[in-house]
């Protein structure tokens, strides 16, 4: 009881802090100089209509690279965490627990006709949509992360609809690694042939708004999408135990 009172007090105090923040907030009426610079430079210098993608892939590409690393590490961490114990490991109880766990949750009932057919119909659509979002990232709303997430949701659907099916984790992780290495390499190419690490301008800018344009941004975007899609799928698969 006292605990709830304390928690209520803490939450209330944070509430007051937030209220004060809201009280101090005034909606901006114009872009600040730096933001304006992004808005004007991204189309001009990079040739990408989607300014957010330009920022993500180029200006703050270093962040994005780090973010990819984070996802990559999560896949590795989950793998480490949920790895089956060796037969004679000390925590045998834990091993038994995992086995039981899957036994409980997966009675392996065949999914219904509707689900299976639905999956068959939806999966290609989802993958195609994912691919579209990935490769159009430089032109319209979307990009590697978003598209990658869509692709992974397809993988998730597949795993839900066909509990028996197995993703080829080995293949996915090879793809994931290759995409990562290529991403870093593209960054290096930018360093050598353009102005700096992760600079996509080593490819021609092309016609503004065309599918093939904006330097290497679509390329990087695609790699990102592949990598994110593969990573998320691996993570989802690992949770199946």
């Amino acid at each position: 009881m006292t605990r709830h009172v304390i928690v209520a007090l803490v939450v209330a105090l944070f509430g007051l802090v937030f209220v004060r923040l809201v009280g101090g907030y005034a909606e901006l009426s114009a872009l600040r100089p730096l933001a304006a610079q992004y808005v004007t430079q991204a189309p001009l210098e990079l040739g990408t209509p989607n300014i957010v993608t330009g920022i993500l892939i180029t200006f703050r590409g270093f962040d994005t690279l780090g973010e990819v690393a984070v996802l990559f590490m999560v896949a590795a961490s989950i793998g480490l965490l949920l790895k089956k114990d060796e037969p004679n490991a000390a925590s045998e109880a834990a091993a038994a627990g995992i086995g039981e766990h899957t036994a409980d949750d997966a009675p392996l009932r065949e999914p219904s006709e509707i689900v299976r057919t639905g999956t068959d119909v939806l999966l290609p659509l989802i993958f195609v949509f994912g691919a579209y979002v990935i490769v159009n990232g430089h032109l319209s709303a979307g990009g590697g992360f978003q598209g990658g997430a869509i692709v992974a949701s397809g993988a998730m659907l597949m795993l839900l609809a066909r509990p028996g099916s197995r993703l080829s984790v080995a293949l996915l992780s090879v793809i994931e690694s290759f995409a990562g290495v290529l991403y870093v390499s593209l960054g290096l190419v930018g360093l050598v042939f353009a102005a700096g690490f992760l600079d996509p301008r080593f490819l021609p800018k092309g016609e503004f708004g065309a599918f093939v344009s904006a330097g290497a941004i679509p390329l990087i975007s695609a790699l990102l999408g592949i990598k994110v899609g593969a990573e998320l799928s691996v993570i989802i698969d690992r949770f199946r135990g």
Partner: protein
Amino acid sequence: MVASLFHPLNIFLLGLGGGFVIPLLYRLGKAWLHAGFWLALAGIVAVSGVSLFDVYRSGTPIEVLTAGFAPPLSINLRFGLWEGFFAVPVGLVAMLGALHLWDRLKGNYGALLLYLILVMGIDGMVMTRDLFNLFVFLEIVSIATYGLLALDRTPAAIAAAFKFIMATVIASTFLLLGTVLLYYVTGTLNIDTLIAERQQITGPIGATALLMVLGCLIIELKPFPANGWGLDVYETAPSGVASLVSVGVSAGVFFALVKLLPLFEAQLGLIAICGGITFLFSNLIGCTQTKVQRLLGYSSISQMGLMLLALALLTEIGASASIPLVVGGLFINHLLAKAGLFWLAGVLRQDDVEAHASLGGRPLLLGLLALFMVAIAGLPPFPGFWAKWELVMQLTGMGRLPWVALILAGSLLEAAYMFNWFVRALRPSDERAGEGPDLIALLPVYGVALLLVGAGYLAARMSGAGQAWLFAPLLVGLALYTLDRLPGRVEGVLTLVAVALAGGWLAWSAEGIAWLFAALLLAGSLVIAAAGLYRRDRRPGYYPMLAILLISIPALLRSSTSLEFFFSWEIITLASCFLIAKGRGAGPHVLTFLLFSLVSAFFLLAGFAGIAALSGTTSLSALVTSGPDATVAFVLLAVGFLIKAGAIGVHVWLPGAYAEADDDFTAMLSAVVSKVAMFGLLIGTYLATRSEVSIEMAHGMAWVGMLTTIAGALLALRQSDFKLLLAFSSMSQLGYIVTAIALMSHLGWVTALYLVANHMMVKGILFLAVAGIIWRTGTRDFAGTGGLARAMPVSFVLVAFAILSMSGLPPLMGFGGKWLLLSAMAEKGWTWLALAGLVATFLGFLYMIRLVAGLFLGVPPAGQARAREVPPTLIAPQLLLAAGILVLSLYPKLLMDPVSAAIDPQFAATLVWEGKSLYTIYGYWNPTPVMIAAVAAAAVLGIAAWLVYRGGAGRRTGSLSRFYGYYRSVLERSLPPVATGFWNGVTGATLAAAATVRLLYTGNGQTYALYVLVYFLALYAASLGPAGFWVGS
């Protein structure tokens, strides 16, 4: 090409590229995997190392730009001196750590890539100049840590990791929100721009955003009390991972704070308070901890607190020039020593301090453990020592005395629990704990130990104390250590030669009184050390340590600055401590000795800092010239030296240490080492010659000395263990010297030196003789001895001779000293002191008679083994000392003249001194009446005591031993052990407080999360006040 190969950007290419490639290499085979991992990790370290070198050479930081646009448009990073200073050591330690963790890492490509990216992430946190990028790197580091925490799969470890995640996620959420709000306020994320335009960060949103960023960084550093989650991880994680969290991740976070500090100018005081509370309480709670890794956790957290405190305070007082030495020194010290300790604990598989894993039979491991402990405790020659010195100097200079007190108190507590572990590791254990860890497992530990030594030297150079002579004792010790496998006596002889050469060289450069002390003590120490040759056994580590001790004494005496003095002082303390620890039953007494020594050292440190603050220089000559304001400094110094001299009340460390050390080493302790404190007191007392207040203080000190003499004599009378009796006799005799110094007159000081010389030789003989008796009879108890005069005639004569000189009866040397003292007191009008001196003389006679009678006279006890005279190796040094006494008795001028000459010029310049040369005093001084009066008084008291004894019923047939037995029981009843009780009470209260405070750590992750949130609210409230919770204008 080479330049681009070692450009700092490559750190990230290697880290990320290497990380991404690792799964591919895994499929190619183990060898590929391992080669790739090591290549990338070593590459990261090499790149940062080369970059640091470049930056150091060129003096300009390397800017790392990304995306081909200039900041603030794109993210940039910077590799400057500071960055390199953090990145390179962390990288090196991470490499050694990977080696340590290799068993767990090698089969596990996931762990390998996490480890690699973690190291890169730390470098990123250090280098990035973009606030949001900092958040990304923080997350990279956090996620990698979470993953590595999964290496240990026990329920406790997994639970601890979950608590860790909860708390750090809250912290990073603060950083995220703070960053975005800062962007809202300023329109930029570039740290340099933010700092340049920090004046514009105002209003409710700006202030809160700053506090959120600050809150995240402080919480990530695990502040007390919101740090239970960190401790649990330290306790349960694999030692390699725990060390990485403790030294690597914390280093990254700390450097982020260093980088952002200009934004928090208004919060400096708050940061210091956070650090101070953490430092003090972590160390307090650490005192009740026995689990090794959790213990190290408390120490880690406290060290981060100390760094935080130092950084904030030094910035606040504008002493930025000291930050590299202080913060850098503390950082390197913590990094290397803590990593070493974690790994050592891991290698030994010791999870509890109380565990039976004794290191008694493994000197090498014990040495490593000692080395790291010494570093952690902030003792020389490691970087922590130089850093703490500079910190205390700066803070005292700005009058931040409460902070100094806090730092010293916390350091003491930390030393207490760390060395408690060490002392327990010393315990001899019966079971031979299997085979030791192999060389490979210890390789990383050696690595950090070496780095630590190197860092210590660099820090010394930075402090301006890099002269070779200062390190001569350590170098000689090291050289002798390499010869430690030689037979004991050979090594002993080598030690003597080394001490004579190095010590002589050092003593040669000393001046004035210090030169006298140096010559006297060096000669004494050589003679007494030679007596150690009577032992034929190998004494691993004994001789190198002895050399360090004995050479440090002249080094201390030739110091010209207080820093050099303090350095040698601490080395002497440490060397004595380790030598005492060689004694069989020394265990618990080592800790007491060390703690009292540290308290003493801290008083000295504060005193020296006070003088430096007054005079603006650390030169020891400031002791003579500083003005009348130095009273406080004088008191601090006097207390420090008195603790070390075993003055009444703080004498409790003395008997145990003296009695339990090796028998020949006790002679060294009492005869030589104790005199160092006397020298300190003498030069410290110069301060008091400047003002009337101080003269009164000196009067007080004289009483302390006299009471010490009386108490020592009474305690000596109580003993039935004759080595203990001599130990207390030492305390008693040192009391005389203290009183003589406190006289503050020429006569007093000449007397003091005379007494020093006398005591050195007398106690040398007595303890060596006793060593022989213990050797031959195998007992230290009066009950097991008696009538040895026939069996050991030479010893008997020597002891009788020494006792005669100590008692002050004519014609020997002590006679001059004792009567000089009494008449000097009378002359000064300190009548009561003089009377007390008479009582003390009487009590002294009593225990001396008991010593001679109990050992050599009477009938041998029934079970006594047939004792033989000791060999010449033990007799010869005693004879030499006796000859010394004889010479100085016959030709006192040999000592008096140089002493007089050394003292006069100092005093001629002072105001209070009314110069009287010794000759004028001798001219009209007639000792005989004083002596006759004193002996008569003693005789009267003795007869009275005898009558009282005979007055009781049934004690008609008293022999001498029964007489002593009677008074011993009287004394035991009438003199409760007040001092021991008091110090036990202090210890008990500390432990009780620690046990209470640590109840905060309930172990519940949700509660810990609540603590973290409340901590932020407290920080917020402390910074903004109640207005922070109100939607104002």
